[in-house]
């Protein structure tokens, strides 16, 4: 209300300080009631309108958009960091690690932040092991994200972090755990490998992906303006659940010996591929399983993709004479013969439109059934199979596991090929009993002999022993039910007869293990020539399957060599591999011979 001098002088204009008008007489004429009322009303309307706008906006902010704003605010002050679950280990049955994960990081860069690509590249090239030119090119790209190196060890990334700020500007690190296979190719085909995205692509890594992978967690915390976590702030972290440890039934040492022996076999010039499996007789557990050429899962991407399988479970071949054990077991179990039954065996036999001969045609010989097996007489086996009958033989074959998957915990298992007996032609009916015209895997064949070694009770082979979860709970792997295939007496007679094969007078003296009584059977099956689809010039699959000691079997070993260019028989090439593997298995397994003498066998009567 106080008037400034200037204002006082200005309007008055006459220099006197007299008020220009009487206080309270601004309006010459006071407003009329109506006018005042109207103004008040407009003012009120204006104020209410303002209020409505403000309240309306408030309602919109709080009520309608409230959730999204609250969300935006939360997002602004919450930071989420992934916590990667550590992939579980794969160990052998003694706990030796076959596969495990270690922390590593992926080094990435934001080229738009990198000040001097050349200097950064020079600093990184020795640390990351990437050529300078590659680094410079990546660091000079247009873009905001380039991967400089994958799976860099943490001690290396620590060194990168220690570089001067100007040099490492724009570099970033991401978790990128690396999967290590310390044993390399030993057990590699069983263990399998993990792809770039962390998913198992072969072997146990694939079948046990869910167990091994674990569950990723995330750290979700409230942070301050500079990104530091606020103590006692909101913490909505979910911890990661690490993957479980899968323990296999394999024995790393035995696996190493088997792999070494197979590699030696593969290096003989005539063997294209080989596979072997060692089973525990009483449990059906796989003690070793290997093939050559094998591969190192740590370098799977440098391996021929055709070799990235497991030939023991996925490659099928015609087993040949080793199948005669099934034929004879069926005949004895059906009461058609005993080990001492004498048959007059000719050198050849008519089977439909074909003639099947023994390895060497001969005049009729009075073979005992033991002799038929020991000398691997095709004719004798076919004669016994005819006694049994096709459908019964098929029933026995299937009971022994031929033609169906064993259910082992490995991917890509083949069931083999066994046609229904109703579809057998005359020649097929003569071929199946001697192991031609039927395809099996090495594992199936080992399982057949495990049945005989185990008193006629078949336990399907398994390779996983137990799973240990991250919290320490151990779950034993489920075991399939054991099934009786033949009587204990039949199995005993087969063991007796198969012992005649190994040693003097049999087809596989090289399969002997000094000091032990060994039981086994050779097989030499024609290999189909992939060039012509016929047997001519295809070479042979030579096999040897057996178990020891004869009076208390502990291990079954099955060996299979694919020899496209060789005429050698199973007793000459597969038996020595069997012998070496079996010797190690028995010695390392602490098996002591009982000292019982090897029986004398009557193979033929005059």
């Amino acid at each position, binding site marked *: 209300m106080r008037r400034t001098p200037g204002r006082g002088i200005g309007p008055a204009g006459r220099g006197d300080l007299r008020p220009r008008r009487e206080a309270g007489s601004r309006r010459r004429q006071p407003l009329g009631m109506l006018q005042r009322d109207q103004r008040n009303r407009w003012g009120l309307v204006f104020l209410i309108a303002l209020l409505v706008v403000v309240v309306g906006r408030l309602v919109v902010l709080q009520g309608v958009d409230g959730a999204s704003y609250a969300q935006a605010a939360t997002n602004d002050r919450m930071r989420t960091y992934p916590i990667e679950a550590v992939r579980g280990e794969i160990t052998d049955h003694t706990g*030796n690690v076959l596969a495990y994960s270690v*922390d590593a990081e992926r080094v990435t860069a934001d080229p738009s932040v990198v000040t001097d690509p050349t200097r950064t590249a020079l600093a990184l090239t020795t640390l990351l092991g990437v050529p300078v030119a590659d680094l410079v090119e990546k660091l000079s790209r247009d873009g905001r994200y380039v991967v400089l190196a994958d799976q860099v060890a943490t001690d290396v990334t620590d060194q990168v972090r220690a570089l001067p700020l100007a040099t490492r500007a724009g570099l970033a690190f991401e978790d990128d755990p690396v999967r*290590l296979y310390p044993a390399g*190719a030993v057990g590699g085909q069983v263990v399998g490998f993990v792809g770039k995205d962390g998913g198992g692509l072969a072997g146990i890594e694939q079948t046990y992906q869910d167990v091994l992978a674990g569950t990723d967690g995330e750290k979700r915390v409230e942070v301050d303006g500079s990104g530091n976590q606020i*103590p006692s702030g909101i913490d909505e972290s979910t911890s990661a659940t690490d993957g479980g440890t899968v323990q296999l039934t394999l024995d790393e040492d035995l696996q190493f010996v088997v*792999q070494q022996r197979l*590699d030696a076999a593969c290096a003989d010039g005539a063997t294209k591929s080989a596979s072997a499996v060692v089973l525990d007789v009483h449990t059906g557990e796989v003690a070793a399983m290997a093939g050559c050429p094998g591969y*190192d899962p740590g370098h799977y991407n440098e391996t021929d993709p055709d070799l990235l399988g497991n030939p023991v479970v996925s490659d099928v071949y015609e087993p040949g004479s080793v199948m005669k054990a099934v034929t004879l077991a069926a005949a004895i179990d059906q009461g058609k013969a005993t080990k001492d039954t004498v048959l007059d065996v000719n050198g050849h036999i008519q089977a439909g439109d074909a003639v099947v001969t023994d390895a060497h045609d001969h005049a009729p010989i009075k073979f005992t059934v033991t002799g038929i097996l020991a000398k691997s007489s095709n004719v004798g086996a076919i004669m016994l199979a005819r006694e049994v009958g096709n459908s019964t033989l098929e029933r026995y074959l299937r009971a022994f596991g031929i033609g169906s998957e064993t259910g082992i915990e490995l991917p890509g298992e083949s069931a083999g090929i066994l046609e229904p007996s109703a579809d057998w032609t005359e020649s097929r009916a003569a071929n199946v009993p001697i192991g031609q015209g039927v395809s099996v895997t090495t594992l199936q064949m080992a399982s057949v002999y495990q049945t005989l070694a185990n008193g006629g009770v078949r336990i399907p082979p398994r390779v996983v022993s137990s799973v240990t979860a991250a919290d320490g709970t151990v779950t034993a792997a489920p075991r399939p039910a054991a099934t009786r295939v033949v009587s204990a007496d039949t199995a005993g007679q087969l063991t007796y007869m198969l012992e005649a094969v190994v040693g003097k007078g049999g087809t596989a003296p090289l399969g002997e293990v000094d*000091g032990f009584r060994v039981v086994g059977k050779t097989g030499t099956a024609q290999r189909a020539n992939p060039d012509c689809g016929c047997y001519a010039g295809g070479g042979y699959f030579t096999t040897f399957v057996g178990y020891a000691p004869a009076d208390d079997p502990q291990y079954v070993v099955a060996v299979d060599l694919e020899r496209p260019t060789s005429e050698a028989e199973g007793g000459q090439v597969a038996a020595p591999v069997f012998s070496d593997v079996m010797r190690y298995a028995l010695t390392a397994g602490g098996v002591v011979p009982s*000292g019982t003498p090897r029986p004398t066998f009557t193979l033929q009567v005059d």
Partner: protein
Amino acid sequence: MTQPARTSSARTARSSARSTARTSARSTSRATTGPVHVPRTGPTRRTGAVPSGPHLRLVPPARTTPTRVPARARRTGRRRAPFVALLVGLLVATVLGLLLLNTAVAVDSLDATQQRQANAEQAEEVARLEQQVIAADTAAELARVATAAGLVPPGAAAHLVLQPDGSSVLLGTATPAPPAVPAPATPTPGD
């Protein structure tokens, strides 16, 4: 001066009225019932008919002086001083406490961060060492080192088996191990 005086006199009047009422109630109850064991409880208030009228009267202001307000302020000021001091003290204590707690939390947080980092570093170190142990413990590596140290794979073992009659039977032939080959380590499979 007057105001407190008035108040005090009013209070005295009221209290005297109450005491009178009490006494009168007591006397009445004593008069009617005789026993004196419940003298100070309910009945006094319930009676209601307290002859308080004559005891309440308006006390005229004794003096009206212009100094009454400062006097009052001085007096209440004197009474408020400890209260204000208490409040200020509490405030200061709260601020200091908060500061202390905050500092403690910050220090602990820093400590936790450092320890977490140290822990992570040590975990990395452990992982690195474990990696070395695992790598050196594989069958292939053991075989390589053993060969490098001049060891050779054993020959076939023979077994001496005791018979029930006390004699022993030699099973198998003990083969002496082949002499060490001074060649480089056997190639490990897969390499």
